[in-house]
């Protein structure tokens, strides 16, 4: 862009050239390019965004950004001070900001929670825990208002609590299927259905009573899994296998196992967004979902495959029975 030896290096060409050689505000190139992925501040946190347009108004650059994963209604014009380059260093900063949000709250409520004996007044201790996940007051639904922002923060908090060994499991899964052309051998054992039942048993034993909330959530997960599997949980290379293994009335939760269940968890924030849950309930729900993930993690070696079938680049890795 600035190949010439002129002192005036403003590019973009839409603005009037100004002769201000001090260049405190003018004569600068746009720091971010159109189409560039960046990190943008929205409130106290950083979010991945994309620069759609750049404009120089009165010698100041502004950028129209779209937040990745958010609806277009959030797109806005921002100035340089709201943006950071998408580098490893800045991504770390993004994670740190998220963590410090969590820590602030847990330091406050952690102390109180410790003094409460287990099992007493469940409703109260749950409320303390709730604060750990999300700050902010309860607000009634305003279209495109603060409620959605808070939901977005709590979504990314959910993802940041995703157990790291399970993240690695998903990366290995990705590699097996998309890079090495392998497939999960079906039908699996334990199946998604088995795993969810085991979790409910585990929970019932631990709490010493039947927990209605968990029961409902697990039903919900099974329901989601059966619908979502063919629609958004498969890699392209797995579609052929799906049509072979899941025929007629068969539900995917009786065929597939932990590998694909884990993928559902990645999609959960997106799916749950349609429910438009109240903040408190959503936080409680996310805590319970994280507990299920921890259960998967605890049983990682028995629930998950360490090796997949096949090895050709195509989809013909299906073994004949």
């Amino acid at each position, binding site marked *: 862009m600035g190949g010439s030896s002129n002192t005036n290096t403003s590019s973009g060409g839409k603005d009037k050239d100004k002769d201000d050689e001090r260049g405190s505000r003018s004569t600068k190139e746009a720091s971010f390019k159109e189409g560039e992925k960046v990190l943008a501040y929205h409130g106290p946190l950083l979010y*991945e965004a994309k620069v759609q347009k750049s404009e120089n108004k009165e010698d100041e650059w502004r950028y129209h950004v779209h937040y990745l994963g958010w609806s277009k209604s959030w797109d806005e014009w921002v100035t340089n001070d709201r943006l950071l380059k998408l580098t*490893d260093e800045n*991504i*770390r900063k993004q994670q740190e900001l998220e963590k410090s949000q969590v820590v602030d709250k847990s330091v406050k409520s952690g102390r109180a929670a410790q003094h409460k004996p287990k099992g007493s007044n469940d*409703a109260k201790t749950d409320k303390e825990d709730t604060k750990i996940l999300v700050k902010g007051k309860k607000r*009634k*639904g305003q279209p495109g208002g603060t409620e959605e922002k808070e939901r977005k923060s709590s979504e990314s908090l959910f*993802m940041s609590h995703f157990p*790291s060994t399970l*993240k690695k499991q*998903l*990366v290995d899964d*990705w590699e097996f299927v998309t890079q090495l052309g392998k497939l999960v051998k079906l039908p699996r054992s334990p199946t998604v259905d088995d795993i969810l039942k085991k979790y409910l048993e585990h929970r019932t034993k631990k709490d010493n009573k039947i927990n*209605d*909330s968990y*029961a*409902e*959530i697990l*039903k*919900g997960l099974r*329901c*989601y899994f059966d*619908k*979502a599997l*063919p*629609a*958004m*949980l*498969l*890699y*392209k290379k797995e579609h052929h296998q799906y049509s072979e293994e899941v025929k007629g009335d068969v539900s995917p939760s009786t065929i597939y196992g932990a590998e694909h269940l884990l*993928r559902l968890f*990645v*999609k959960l924030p997106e*799916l*749950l967004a*349609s*429910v*438009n*849950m*109240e903040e*408190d*309930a959503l936080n*409680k*729900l996310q805590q319970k979902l994280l507990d299920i993930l921890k259960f998967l993690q605890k049983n990682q070696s028995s629930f998950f495959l360490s090796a997949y079938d096949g090895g050709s680049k195509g989809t013909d890795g299906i073994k004949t029975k």
Partner: protein
Amino acid sequence: MEAAADEEQEGISAQSPAQAPPSSASSLPKEQSQVELELRVLQALEFYPPSKLKGIHRHFVLYGLMEYLRNSLDRQFSADEVLQLLDRFFNLEMLKPEDDEKDNFTQGEEFSLPESFFNKDE
């Protein structure tokens, strides 16, 4: 003896719903709490419209309702209780699932892992 009996009665009627045994919707002591219960249910529906009780999100919508009632009335509600309560206001069987749900699921988009999963943790 009679005095003691009177006192006992007073004690019972002074109990708030919060002290009622859990999961016993049939033993609501007073009309007042009945009204409050119904009021809370109607309030809850502002967040959780009954139309969503038929679609794919129904279990989570029901969960939301259970939580809402638990928070506002300070006692545990079972899924069945909530459904019974709703039944007083709506004919749940007649509900049709929302149509826009189908769009979410028929699209067949390929699964993709978010970038952040590929970054190494510290």
